């Protein structure tokens, strides 16, 4: 069977974060919060987990005077997520036969 089911994406918040980072070069903490409707702590925990896996990178910048925490997907993260997607598609195809 193609692809691998990655435990890192089992949680829906991590799955969403990764989906967003597949199509956006950067995404900041507050935008994640806004789009996903999660609490600060919850989001931070899952972001750190993805960071520890080496799937996302963090970068702190300033917009005017406001600090902003930007996230981006690493090559490794993109590859792992792609495999996860392949697995899901394969699973669907298999069930449909």
């Amino acid at each position, binding site marked *: 069977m193609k692809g691998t089911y990655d435990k890192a994406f089992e949680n829906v918040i991590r799955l*969403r974060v990764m*989906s967003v980072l597949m*199509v956006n070069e950067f*995404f900041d903490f507050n935008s994640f919060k806004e*789009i996903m409707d999660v609490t600060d702590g919850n989001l931070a925990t899952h972001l750190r987990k993805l960071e520890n896996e080496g799937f996302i990178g963090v970068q702190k910048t300033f917009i005017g005077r406001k600090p902003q925490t930007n996230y981006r997907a690493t090559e490794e993260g993109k590859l792992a997520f792609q495999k996860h*997607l392949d697995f*899901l*598609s394969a699973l*669907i195809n298999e069930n449909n036969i």
Partner: protein
Amino acid sequence: MKKPEQELAEIKSMMERSTRFLSLSGMAGILAGIYAFAGAGIAWYWVYFPSTEYGLGIEPYSMDDLRIYLLAVAVVVLILAIGTTYLLSQNKSKRTSQQFWSAASKRFLVALFLPVLVGGLFCFALIHESSYGLIAPATLIFYGLGLISASHFTLREIRNLGLGQILLGLIGAFFPPLGLVCWAMGFGVLHVVYGSMMYYRYDR
């Protein structure tokens, strides 16, 4: 584990919702503000000059003429503003090598122009009913609503710009003699302020 179909749908919806139209040019905002301010100046001159300070006096033109002149100025300002924004934003998207026509930019346009279009039709109704004093506030309010709905799909500053327009629109609606002044503040000054803010933050 959830059903794989659900999971894929979730991923797809997240990807769609998170992409924003980021090519909106700050410089275009500044220029649009300047056109609007110039347009408002011309309108002020035609409507209120020579006249009392509140503009409730002699009218140098007949009502019919004035109506056509004002409509013409409004249309010219609108075309110039949209044209400039289109060209400069396209330019910016080339410079930052982002796609100009994308799902995000289309959603942005629909969100912005649905309220604006309704507002435009509403203004024709106001002309039809001879409620001229409410036209300027109505354009501000509908444009502000459009900006707020479009702000989900583009740079954040747009949301506050929209709130500002609505506030000025409401002030103008309750004090019709201030209508044109509010219009010049909203479409002119606010555009320049937010345009420069966006220019300094994102365009350079």
